[in-house]
């Protein structure tokens, strides 16, 4: 199967993202399954960042560090990323950093031949297309759209720039006999979507009508998307003064009957923890999107990690049910958001959805989002069916009828203190307090029964299992396949629903490995807690980059 990874590197502000986006769009438009991901520093200009674009015929949706084609936009980028270039890979650059380099002097061509210095990046895009054997017209269509608001002159100049880059690179390729690729148009179209888009669309699908959040990478994109479309879709959006406000606002909106959410990253989530406990006590549905980045504290603001699983599971003082989900890609993320709102509503609990910078920023190829399987469900009480309304009525499964204020004659009370069924403060330790503690526990048990078992992949005949969760799924599957090809009988058990962990029949007699993008092995701790499971070995990272199949295989092989 064709599998080509193109890495574009350069400083912030230098156009790495644009180059990557245009290339990815072009390849996607040609019918290929593109997977692109980026890693970048926490600064607005300078530093060295990269975008990697992996192209194949069917979706792999897993990151690869090593480049088949590397395009550094400056010499620092060359130095930082050249070690990633595969043997035999193509280095495309404006200068001959080393031999062999396919040299295409982007800036010179832009200045001298196009007469537009800022078109240098378009020359580079064209050159990339040339290296890859992409039809220049396919690229032009994408470029035209990209520059559509800039006027006909600029469009024409960029076309020219792209064509010149294409020609120069293509002829350099021919000379060097270095570029084996070609991407003829295919009769297939994938959605090319990032988590940061699929998550808010999932919220839209779920019927979310309110979001309040405070900007924090890598979560900001979620509220930004909803802000952009909110006015048209009827979603109330508020940029709060801080995360505490954001979370309490979402709780207020939810109490008043609206599906409501907030989004943040670890530090902001820490500030929401008290309010999560409030949602638990008041039994107010709440969805919190926690986009992880490496901590502790400010950590690495623009990097990726799976470091907040145990924190999310245990967030909030006191004891109350909550759910934690961790989708692995945009499609699962869309579904997870709908699921999160449904669970939150059904059990009247806070639900935390864990994503991370990798999942937020990476663009996956999706064949079909299967919206028919992501359907919003609501669990409204019927005001007419209630005679004397009690917000916290004691029921067998602990779930009380939920009405919203103003909906009917029934008054709705919510209390952060321990309360009686009417929502009034109680200090009746003999009867009411134990009854309410037990009610919340029953609800938690009901919630646990509703949680989904992990996904098994090639596990049946496996001797060893990789245990994983969240956004590493693609890499872990790829590692399983790769190690299978080496003769290892490996399988995968992958968790997308992490808390409460349901009953699960663990296959016995298999060697278990937890594979996580953190240093602490948090999933293994959780499985130990829940199932008394012990892992044989751990495959952990936590350096701020996404886990790749190659890294997993390397660490696995080191321990074998």
């Amino acid at each position, binding site marked *: 199967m064709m599998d080509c990874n193109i890495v574009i590197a350069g400083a912030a502000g230098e156009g790495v993202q644009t180059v990557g986006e245009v290339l990815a769009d072009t390849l996607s438009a040609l019918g290929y399954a593109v997977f692109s991901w980026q890693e970048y520093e926490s600064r607005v200009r300078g530093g060295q960042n990269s975008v990697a674009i992996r192209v194949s015929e069917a979706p792999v949706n897993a990151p690869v560090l090593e480049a088949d084609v590397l395009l550094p936009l400056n010499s620092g980028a060359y130095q930082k990323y050249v070690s990633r270039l595969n043997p035999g890979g193509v280095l495309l650059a404006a200068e001959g950093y080393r031999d062999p380099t396919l040299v295409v002097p982007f800036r010179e061509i832009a200045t001298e031949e196009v007469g537009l210095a800022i078109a240098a990046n378009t020359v580079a895009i064209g050159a990339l297309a040339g290296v890859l054997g992409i039809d220049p017209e396919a690229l032009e269509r994408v470029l035209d759209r990209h520059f559509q608001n800039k006027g006909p002159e600029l469009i024409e100049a960029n076309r020219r720039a792209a064509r010149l880059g294409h020609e120069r690179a293509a002829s350099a390729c021919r000379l060097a006999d270095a570029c084996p690729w070609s991407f003829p148009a295919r009769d297939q179209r994938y959605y090319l979507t990032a988590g940061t888009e699929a998550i808010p669309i999932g919220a839209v699908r779920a*019927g979310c009508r309110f979001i309040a959040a405070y900007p924090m990478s890598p979560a900001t994109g979620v509220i930004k998307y909803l802000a952009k*479309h909110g006015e048209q879709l*009827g979603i*109330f959006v508020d940029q709060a*003064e801080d995360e505490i*406000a954001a979370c309490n606002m979402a709780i*207020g909106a939810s109490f008043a009957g609206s599906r409501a959410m907030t989004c943040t990253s670890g530090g902001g989530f820490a500030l929401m923890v008290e309010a999560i406990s409030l949602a638990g006590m*008041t039994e107010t549905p709440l969805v919190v999107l926690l986009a992880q980045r490496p901590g502790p504290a400010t950590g690495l603001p623009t990097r990726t990690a799976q470091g907040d699983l145990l924190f999310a599971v245990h967030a909030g003082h006191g004891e109350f049910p909550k759910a934690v989900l961790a989708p692995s890609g945009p499609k699962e993320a869309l579904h997870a958001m709908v699921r999160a709102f449904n669970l939150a509503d059904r059990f009247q609990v806070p639900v935390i959805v864990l994503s991370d910078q990798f999942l937020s920023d990476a663009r996956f190829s999706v064949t079909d989002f299967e919206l028919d399987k992501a359907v919003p469900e609501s669990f409204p009480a019927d005001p007419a069916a209630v005679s004397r309304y009690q917000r916290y009525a004691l029921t067998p499964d602990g779930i009380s009828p939920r009405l919203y204020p*103003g909906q009917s004659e029934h*008054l709705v009370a919510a209390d952060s203190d321990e309360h009686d069924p009417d929502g009034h403060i109680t200090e009746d330790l003999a009867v009411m307090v134990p009854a309410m503690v037990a009610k919340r526990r029953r609800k938690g048990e009901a919630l646990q029964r509703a949680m989904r078992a992990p996904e098994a992949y090639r596990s049946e005949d496996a001797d060893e299992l990789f245990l994983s969760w969240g956004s590493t799924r693609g890499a872990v599957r790829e590692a399983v396949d790769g190690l299978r090809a080496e003769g290892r009988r490996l399988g995968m058990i992958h968790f997308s629903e992490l808390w409460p962990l349901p009953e699960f029949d663990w296959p016995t007699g298999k060697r278990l490995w937890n594979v996580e993008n953190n240093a602490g092995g948090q999933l293994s701790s959780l499985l130990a807690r829940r199932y008394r499971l012990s892992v044989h070995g751990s495959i952990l990272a936590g350096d701020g980059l996404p886990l790749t199949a190659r890294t997993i295989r390397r660490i696995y092989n080191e321990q074998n």
Partner: protein
Amino acid sequence: MSRTDRFHSDAEVQWCPGCPNFGILTALKKALSELNQSPRDLCLVSGIGQAAKLPHYLACNFFNGLHGRAIPTALGIQAANPQLTTIVTTGEGDCYGEGGNHLLHALRRNPDLTVLVHNNEIYALTKGQASPTTPVGEVRGLHPQGLDLTPLNFPAIAVLHDAALVARGFAADPEQLKTLLVEAITTPGLALVEVIQPCISWNPHPIAWYRERIRPVPADHDPADKVAALRLLDSPEGRYTVGLLYRGRPRPTYGDRFRSAHGRHPLAELAPPPTAVVDQLLDAFKRS
């Protein structure tokens, strides 16, 4: 059923007998009655503290949330259902201390809320520690040598940021307070009503001490005059001046833009968008 009775609640009141909070409760019930408010369309929001227990003591919808967080909760409620009359009942510790940032930023949004601050100049529920309005020099639990922090002047901050209405009442004068509350509740935008509420369990002065010092807003005070209001509030008498202090020029309120596009229905009444809408959003990610 008389108009005030309509707000009767069965919950046992946990305030000390004789606490001036009762006066505030009475004034609020009267104001609501005068406005012909139905409990059904009323939503009280509070944090934690003695003041914050108030919503339990009248018939209404209520959310008795976290210490300091009544305002953001109320904003969410407002956003989700602007048809509710939403009133925040809070203490000065709740609202100026733990929750200071929210009131500050609520002033930016101008939500159609009445923020009713029971100011007893202490943290009463937690047994009398200093609060953001405790006078300098007072001996308090964590300040055995006397407080060395100057008080915050939130009514002045509200004036400075063009709050829709800024008023001060006295808990022992429920009639005037009722009048102020009627004004506040009917004023679109953020109305801050601070109430002098001497705690009879932890405060050093009896109610009479306050009564002696309380002065009405000067007869010639123009509530539209910002500088005059600031001067008044910043003066030594400012602390005890009661009445309508300031009325900001009308300006858009929180969510106006959203409402003009989508109407004033509760968000709860909007069904999730049809699949076609979501498909359309997703189609933007198919390249051609």
